[in-house]
């Protein structure tokens, strides 16, 4: 009986001392965390995709709170949540946010198997990054898509797939959240984030080849040859030609499609435009 009492007293004493030590420590070494970080974090989608440029949503919320204290979160954006989430975050933090255009990943290469014939065979590791270290890959174009699908592996949202017939990646617009993971990983930098455009319509140069016209044409039928016809045709100064390559600024482009018509190699893509009726009818008549 006596030993039980001693045990209870000793253990109780130790517990009491430990409790005091714990209490003192928790007060003394407490780390203050801004409660807004947790609130912002609960608004973010929790995809941890890294599209915002941070390691995950927690890091992004910390950055948002820190930047909001400085007065602006305009250089931060959550591609998954988009404008909706960002405006909620801005409301919570009590600042306004400029609504950016929604973006989508665009593959700037039209080197399909028919446009760009295979010239050699690569036998090493099937990875674009590895193939990129061995010259122009399996075609004569040293700039275009290598076709091993590093971008497909990079996409966490199942939004990009290889088209077996063309050998090029295709972006699913409904799934793409413009996190930019594919664009960062592409060793040839052919994937670009561009504004989705009104009604998802957009015009872009589907080529990144900077070789001189003759060499580019030899490698790929639909290469941009830097002839500058599109730039001359454009009335809105949206097109610049630099280093044998044309580029369309999507902020200035008014989607008039004039450049598409004059491009001699059909390197300029206009997507999601309705097909003109008379053309369709003509085709039917010809068929």
């Amino acid at each position, binding site marked *: 009986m006596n030993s039980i009492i001693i045990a209870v007293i000793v253990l109780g004493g130790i517990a009491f001392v430990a409790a005091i030590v714990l209490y003192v420590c928790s007060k003394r070494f407490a780390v203050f965390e801004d409660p807004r970080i947790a609130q912002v974090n609960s608004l973010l989608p929790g995809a941890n995709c890294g599209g915002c440029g941070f390691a995950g949503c927690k890091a992004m919320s910390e950055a948002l709170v820190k930047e909001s204290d400085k007065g602006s979160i305009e250089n931060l954006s959550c591609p998954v949540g988009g404008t909706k989430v960002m405006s909620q975050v801005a409301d919570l933090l009590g600042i306004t946010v400029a609504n950016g255009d929604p973006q989508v990943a665009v593959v700037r290469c039209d080197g399909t198997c028919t446009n760009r014939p295979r*010239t*050699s*065979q690569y*036998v*090493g*590791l099937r*990875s674009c*990054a*590895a193939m990129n*270290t*061995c*010259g*122009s890959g399996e075609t*004569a174009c*040293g700039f275009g898509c290598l076709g091993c699908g590093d971008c497909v592996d990079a996409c966490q949202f199942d939004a990009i797939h290889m088209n077996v017939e063309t050998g090029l990646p295709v972006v699913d617009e409904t799934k793409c959240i413009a996190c930019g993971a594919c664009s960062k990983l592409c060793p040839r930098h052919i994937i670009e984030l561009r504004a989705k455009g009104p009604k998802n319509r957009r015009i872009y140069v589907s080529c990144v080849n900077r*070789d*001189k016209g003759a*060499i580019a044409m030899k490698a790929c039928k639909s290469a941009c040859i830097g002839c500058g016809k599109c730039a001359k045709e454009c009335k809105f100064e949206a097109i610049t030609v630099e280093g044998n390559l044309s580029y369309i600024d999507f902020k200035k482009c008014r989607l008039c499609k004039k450049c598409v018509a004059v491009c001699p190699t059909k390197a300029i893509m206009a997507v999601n435009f309705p097909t003109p009726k008379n053309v369709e009818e003509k085709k039917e008549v010809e068929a």
Partner: protein
Amino acid sequence: MKIKTFSIGGIHPEENKLTHEVPTQVAPLPTQAIFPLSQHIGAPAKPVVKKGDQVKVGTLIAEAGGFVSAPIYSSVSGTVSKIDAAIDATGYRKPAIFINVEGDEWESSIDRSNNLELVRNHPELTPDEIIERIKNSGITGMGGAGFPTFIKLSPPPNTKPECVIINAVECEPYITADYRLMLEHSDEILIGLELLMKAAKVKRGFIGIETNKPAAIELFTHKCADVFDTTEYQVEVVPLQQRYPQGGEKQLVDAVIGRQVPAPPAIPVNVGAIVQNVGTVYAVYEAVMKRKPLFERYTTVTGKQLSKPTNYLVRMGTPIQLLIDLCGGMPEDDNKVLAGGPMMGKALISTEVPICKGTNAVTILSGDEARRQTPQPCIRCAKCVAVCPMGLEPYLLAKLSAHRDWEHAEHDGITSCIECGSCQFTCPAHRPILDNIRLGKSSVMNIIKLRQTK
């Protein structure tokens, strides 16, 4: 006596030295020579000629573009036709100087006489003068990597060179250019070695030769005894076991003087050795004694299917296609053409690529030889670990690279990899180990560079 070799790892691929007994031939001049501006590690050279300029053999056409860079000299006489992009060994179009060949007129400053001036101690030349002449001649390491030679001779402070080691190992299968050069120009090489020892202010020299070149070992042993007997220099010929990659700088230092070079950024001179390829030594002789800049080199053109594999003395800028034609033309098969040997060579996408300072061989492999087998899962047999001459764990590094785990890859020493390919060669599951490591190594190097600039 036990024949020396490096202490860990290594493989022994089939030798295939088809051109061992084939004397060197002088390759004819091309109709057009192409000089890529980046033939060396470091900044590309800057052109000093323009379209329409007349040049002679040995005329400076591009000057060094930075500290780690080397000038380029014309190997032909004629007219500069254009400065334009041309495919080089990397497979990409890069700026190059094109020269249309007219005649064969040499700069008058170059001494073309054949008399061998055996000047001992070279009293008229100070070490700095020797280094200056090497620098101005555009000499880069002729073994393949293309590191400007003069930098090796001006070692960083707090290092003290003790010896010069000539790399005459030639451990890659097929290649025999260095071997033929040694047999045909042994006296010049010894003078070159003496110049190098004088420039580096050391008294000891070694010549490392693999035992599959007995004629060269014998020749050099005799010559060294004759030539260096009465001088202050001590030169020793070191026969080495046949083992790949013995020609790797660090492996050679280990094999010859038994010292291990620490992990990068350490270089052989940190343990007191300056390693120079035998072709470089010959180029040093020509540059210093004959005032002849680097514009031609010994190259082996080889392959089991070629009808006449041969060693050539070839002017730089000569398209590889011309050499293949000289050897009986491209065999009819789905061939793989490599600039370099089968272990470290780079596959070419075009045979119009010119011979550059670092092209020690052109190897043509048939489709069957070059084809890879389907990779199987790794069974952790650790064969790659056993053969890695750097004591790394290739299977692990490859896995870390594939998962883009750069932090651990760096910790596990991925930057020490010398890309010899022993791991991939030996892997029974045919896994693309080196492909993955190479990717990881370049990524990790970039990360380190970024960290250092911050």
